[in-house]
């Protein structure tokens, strides 16, 4: 499994945004390039300081995800059944969960050949999909789809579709199955940020 390079592109989103609204494609492309540079320059530090990668992720990637919407979508109809504090703590923990996942994968990043398909509109709410294909000799190409929304003039990621597997749908299925079998209270108590 070569997930390592999948999240390179997440770092790309962290590049400083120019005054004019960047297109969704340019956000992904430019940030990808910049992340490659960042990781190469900090290779030694990343090896010696395991916690540093999380700092990078938090600083560069996380601001460009709409975690509020993602948390709402991932819990589906259960979202409204949680109290506001529970919603907040869940969103916080969900973010941490993603940081954990991406940090580990980023550390195994290697040089890859990246290509892009033209972005396109998806669904009926004005979302766009940017598709990136990461190729490496001797391995299956990895496609990453970024479902993006334009929020407050900025393009933000609301879902990742890796090799046709939607991050949101996967966790949604897991969490909702969990809530259905174990109950809401048991579910929410399992998130450390939400522990009473």
């Amino acid at each position: 499994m070569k997930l390592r390079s999948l999240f390179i592109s997440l770092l790309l989103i962290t590049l400083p945004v120019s005054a004019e609204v960047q297109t969704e494609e340019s956000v992904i492309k430019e940030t990808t390039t910049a992340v490659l540079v960042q990781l190469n320059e900090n290779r030694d530090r990343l090896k010696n300081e395991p916690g540093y990668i999380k700092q990078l992720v938090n600083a560069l990637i996380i601001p460009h995800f709409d975690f509020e919407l993602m948390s709402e979508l991932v819990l589906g109809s259960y979202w409204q059944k949680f109290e506001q504090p529970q919603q907040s703590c869940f969103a916080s923990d969900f973010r941490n969960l993603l940081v954990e996942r991406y940090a580990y994968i980023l550390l195994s990043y290697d040089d890859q050949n990246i290509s892009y398909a033209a972005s396109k509109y998806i669904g009926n709410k004005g979302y766009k999909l940017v598709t990136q294909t990461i190729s490496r000799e001797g391995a299956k190409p990895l496609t990453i789809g970024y479902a993006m929304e334009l929020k407050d003039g900025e393009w933000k990621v609301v879902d990742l579709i890796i090799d046709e597997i939607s991050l949101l749908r996967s966790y949604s299925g897991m969490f909702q199955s969990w809530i259905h079998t174990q109950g809401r209270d048991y579910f929410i108590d399992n998130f450390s940020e939400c522990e009473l």
Partner: protein
Amino acid sequence: MRLFDIYKYLVFQRSRSVLVGVVLLCIAAGYQSLNFELDASGESLVLENDESLSYYRQVREDYGTDEYLLITYAPYTDLLSEESLTGIRTLRDQLLQLESVEKVNSILDVPIIYNANVKLSELTNGLRTLDSNELDKDLAKLEFSTNPFYREMLVSVDGSTTALQAIFKTNKEQFDLLNQRKQLNEIAAQRTLDAKESATLETLRQKIAHNNSLTLESRSKDIEAVRQMMNGERQRAKMYLGGIPMITADMIEFIKHDLQVFGIGVLLFLIAILALFFHRIRWVLLPLFCCTATALFMFGFLGFAGWKITVISSNFMSILLIITLSLSVHLIVRFRDLQLEQPDSSHRQIIEDTMSSMLKPCFFTIMTTIVAFGSLVVSNIRPIIDFGWVMIVGLLAAFVFSFLLFPTLLNLLKAAKMPAAHDFTRHVTLKIAQVVRHSPRGIIVICVLFSLGIGFGMTRLKVENRFIDNFRSSTEIYQGMTIIDQQLGGTTPLEIIIDPDSSYYDTTPAGDEEDEFDALFMDEDEQESEPSYWLNPTRIESIHAIQKYLEDNPVIGKVLSIGTVVKIAERLNGAPLDGFELALIHKRIPSDIAADLITPYLSEDASEVRFSARVIESDHSLNRKQLLEDINDFLVNDIGLEPEQIHITGMLVLYNNMLQSLFRSQILTLAAVLFAIFLTFVVLFRNVTLALLGIVPNIFSAVMILGIMGWLRIPLDMMTITIASITIGIAVDDTIHYIHRLKHEYALNQDYESLIDRCHSSIGKAMYYTSVAIIFGFAILSLSNFIPTINFGLMTGIAMILALAGDLLLLPALVLIIKPKIKI
């Protein structure tokens, strides 16, 4: 011209023509007998429309074949020593040379990952195996003892024995043909097939049968080749061969061997017994010719018709020998009696009187025996149905050949010498008659008490037989199965397939959240996989729980499932894997690794899981039916699955289905068979009282033989389960002969006491001769290596004794008490 006149004309006027005709028929049959085949494959044990067989085939097509050979290898040096690895390497390379082998799994080729600090992401790189020179052998040893995939499967727990698994190629053409046949059968169940469809179905059946034959032949050659390979390495290690194909092939060899050796052995023994009884060569040769002609005809007919003999019907020749011999002996005894009664009659007259007096009772014995075996035809197990038809054809052949050959040959011979006036056998049967006359009530009471006491053993009958119990402990099959059971995870495959629950198939939107996802992200041409049903932590927990339950069962050995794979993956990952990661691994794992680790246990869309378990055949506590029920109960009540989600299949299930069905069709229909025979008696004897009296010894024999089997703990398996039909068939013969004789003698003298003496001293002798010859002749079967054959010989002998006792003691005792009114 009456039928009998035509018969007389043929036998007496055209003796030579009849003989030539029979000889030519036998030559043709002999030629066709070259096409005679045995089939001991597992699939020969079930009906072709059996749903469980269809599902079993589907599972094999989806998840891979369970057709493999296992070579257990216990080296005399350390398992991982160079000496040992060289031997394993040699065997592996030789196995790969076999054309029908797709792949060989051994400790040389499996990746060492569990303890080798391999990360998940490194699975695409070249993985180390024992064949990699740089691999540390201690690491390999640790791997084989701890990796849940290899432990107790590739290597025994104590690390002393390994197994090479040679997996045969899947015959895709055969699967296609089977699917086509299944579709046509399904159509045929709904409506009548048109001419084209019928022709296609017939063509498919022939092709499938032909492919099966080729496969069996090929397997047999492969197994022989593998044994040669093993012989070349025996100086390095102790080895056994195992696997379902080997068991199948060896069972065929056992049966073939028994058919040849004991077929001839029984025949020779019978010849000796006949010589002892009758002291004349002609009385040995005549039955011999009748038996030989019947046997040749049957082998030829089976070869011509393409009817294969299975494990269940493999004793058909022994039964036909009994019946043909019985016919011949009755004719001989009658002829000799007439010689004494009519000293002035010509040789031809005596032959004619013999045939005319015996034609009707013999014809009816054959007909009622056909009724007894005809009950097999209504079974839903194909080999049982085939056995029924084989016996029906065989019985008719026995009758025709006996009634053609016996008088024809006898007519061509000189007049026989008068038999000795003093007849030891007559003396014996008269003594028995004396006992009956002396205390008929006592005999009835004893028989009733015996029936109740021994018959109670019927409640102890078990429809359960371990495969391993079919073979002597000295055989390779037995020893191989024991090693594989005790050290390498069990022998008989058992598969549990679990579908998603019913909500998975509900395509209506569950609620707003699905609309939200689709509204946000989905276009018509958008490709996005549905979340995997089973690849999420909650369901993986269920899988682990199911696997633990199966592994904790003492009669189940190795269990593999996607849960095993997840355990390994989480170890490589260093942390638990959530649903997203599992789904990604499922997608991204290299296909060669997926082929071994994932494809056999998870469907392509991850909606169906398969547990591959192996059952420990040698465990005495194994009760297949109970095991399957317990597993089903656990899955429904403890795991909370819907019953429709659960499918249990595999050779164990098919074999259990067959045994249970045999029990239902054989034992539970006994009452119906006995009633049918009673009705036949009514028609035959034209006397309801005689029919009622006649059925009693048959009920006595059936109850006693099943009771004895119960008390002796002889299980109802594929051979012994037909013993009830055989017992009734033999007892009915004796009953018909005796009552027919009774009616004949009653017409001459109505004194019941002397009636019994007269019957015993005439027909009683024939019954005695037949029974004694067969009891001792079949005792030879106890020398077989195939336990069911031994049991069959033993039970047949007991059945003859019971039939004789029933018809020479119980029946005449009842006649003496009841004194039925018989129309003269």
